[in-house]
């Protein structure tokens, strides 16, 4: 029984969402503000969170960051604007996905399910990326000096999926399907931002990537 945290200041939407998710068999914790949401999460340890960006007091981005710092849970941000800047900011704050209002509720449902379903991963052998040692089975990336690199599950999945393709490029579409679990609801921006975040973490020079390489006209590939 998955537990969902919904942080939304609009009463009506929050209530409607709660009813909907409960109708689908989820356990819902709903909070009208970021602070309450974080408090709830700490108490309930939700399996996934849906956070609205427009919140009074603590902003959605800050809430997102706080949640991400505390856990690996999938976070979907809900935005009233479709601005790329907002989206990117949200994703940079640690979200795994975003939807814009007004959304099709079924779509949100499907995405939530997809994120929760992502638990079983493709098994790949461990591999080396320069000074980093990637161990998919353990879900861990270790630096040669022993320090552990923290990746979100989405980022990890992205990395391992690319690795399992043996250096062949995968299109954004493919990546959406394989990593996020769907293709037609997604947006290539998701992929782009996650790739950028990954590069920031694993590339010695993120501006000139040597591992996560863009293949123009096709997508991305991982050079091991």
């Amino acid at each position, binding site marked *: 029984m998955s537990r969902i945290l919904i942080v939304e200041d*609009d009463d*009506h*939407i929050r209530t*409607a*969402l709660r*009813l*909907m998710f409960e*109708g*689908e068999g989820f356990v819902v914790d709903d909070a009208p503000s970021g602070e309450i949401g974080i408090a709830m999460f700490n108490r309930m340890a939700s399996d996934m969170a849906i956070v609205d960006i427009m919140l009074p007091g603590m902003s959605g981005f800050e809430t997102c960051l706080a949640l991400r710092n505390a856990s690996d849970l999938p976070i979907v941000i809900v935005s*009233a604007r*479709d*601005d*790329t800047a907002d989206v990117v900011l949200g994703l940079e704050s640690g979200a795994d996905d975003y939807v814009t*209002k*007004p*959304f*099709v*509720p*079924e779509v949100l*449902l499907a995405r939530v399910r997809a994120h929760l379903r992502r638990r079983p991963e493709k098994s790949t052998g461990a591999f080396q990326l320069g000074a980093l040692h990637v161990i998919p089975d353990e879900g861990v990336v270790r630096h040669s000096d022993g320090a552990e690199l923290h990746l979100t599950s989405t980022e990890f999945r992205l990395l391992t999926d690319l690795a399992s393709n043996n250096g062949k490029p995968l*299109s*954004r*579409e493919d990546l959406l399907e394989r990593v996020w679990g769907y*293709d*037609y*609801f997604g*947006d*290539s*921006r998701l992929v782009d931002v996650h790739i950028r975040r990954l590069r920031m973490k694993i590339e010695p020079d993120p501006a000139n990537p040597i591992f996560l390489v863009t293949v*123009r*006209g*096709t997508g991305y590939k991982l050079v091991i």
Partner: protein
Amino acid sequence: MRRRSLRLRLLVTFGLGAFVISTLFASLTYVGVRRLLIANQQQTDLQQSYVNAALVRSTLYSSPTELSNLLNSIYKATASNVLVQTHNQWLARSNSASTLDVKQATIKTVGAGHATEQTLNADGHVIFVVGVPIPSVETQVFEVFQLANLEQTLRLLALVLGLGALFTSIVGMSGGIWVTRRTVRPLEEVSFAAALIADGALTTRLQVNRADREVQQLTESFNQMVSQLVQRLERDARFASDVSHELRSPLTTLATTATVLQQHRDDLTSAGQESLDLLVADLSIFQSLVEDLLEMSRSDAGAAPLVLETVSAIELVHQSVRSASRRHGIEEPPVEIADGVGDPLVLVDRRRFERVITNVIDNAHRYAAGAAAVRIDVQESQLAVNVDDAGSGVPVDEREHVFERFFRGRAAHDRGIARGTGLGLALVRDHVRAFGGTITVSESPEGGARFQILLPIVQSEQP
């Protein structure tokens, strides 16, 4: 009728006006002065003739032998030749006189007892011949005056006046040019600015510089008008955007609660269930409409800048077709690439392009039982993406109008329920234009409609 140019009219008016007036003035002056001069000359000459005739008479009476001397001294004094005739025989004449100057007509008339005067042309010289009969001494006196001086004076006068007229005309024309420039250039600037604004450069304003008061007024009013219009436009755009924006939250609630109701569908009566179905259907339309409105007003207000990327057209089309088909849960039409197309690259905003393909395919789905094929071709260095269907096609008279907002063609009326938002194709056209391309509708090979999107190719890589 060709519209006449103001500039030309002003120039002609000034130049021609100056010319006509100055020429008129010169002519009148000339004619007037000439008349005066000639009259004066004739008067003087006539008086002289009379005096000389009297002298001739008294000389003849007192000392006829002195006559020749008298005539010569007259010539010396006044440079006019005097000839004296008696009974048709030349009695005496000054030495340089020529009897040829005195014509038969004059001799005859004077012989008949009448004094005469005549200006005539003798071998290129103009002379004034006065004939006076002196019956008391039975002689006729003829005096021949050379008018060469007068001629010269008049010629000089004509020249001076002519030059004056010419000069005035030139000055007039220059004045015309100057006035024209000052008057017409501001007008041209205004029309140029207006054209720019009409084209969409809404920040265009007229420059305010040291100009005439009226032009200054025009400039200021124009700028003010444009600013106000732009403000109004922005307000209107913002309004549509604001309205749509405000609808987001209520819509979200509506959609979500509808879903909840669906979850509890079994708890409803049949009437309730039917109502719920209608609610959900219309809600979906409402949602699409708001989405479209939002997108449209965003692009109107220029709020959402394009994120242009150079992408592989073929890959993008494939992706978009797949997305569009799966989004609507319809069968994916085949993507056919013509021979020799290669791998052309286009400069577009990915999401909007996807939107374009989606809308066109959705349109085909709605009105023509789905798209039959998506064909990619290259036409004169432009990429052609053709979405062909096997429906009833778009009537020729509607082919321009289908891209208008909320246009309902005959097909829409036929179909009845399955209506679109009315903005789908309008959005398509807006986006395509933003990419620097065009969209047209014609006939597909299957006999239905072909929506052809033409985009400029940035670079092409051969396969």
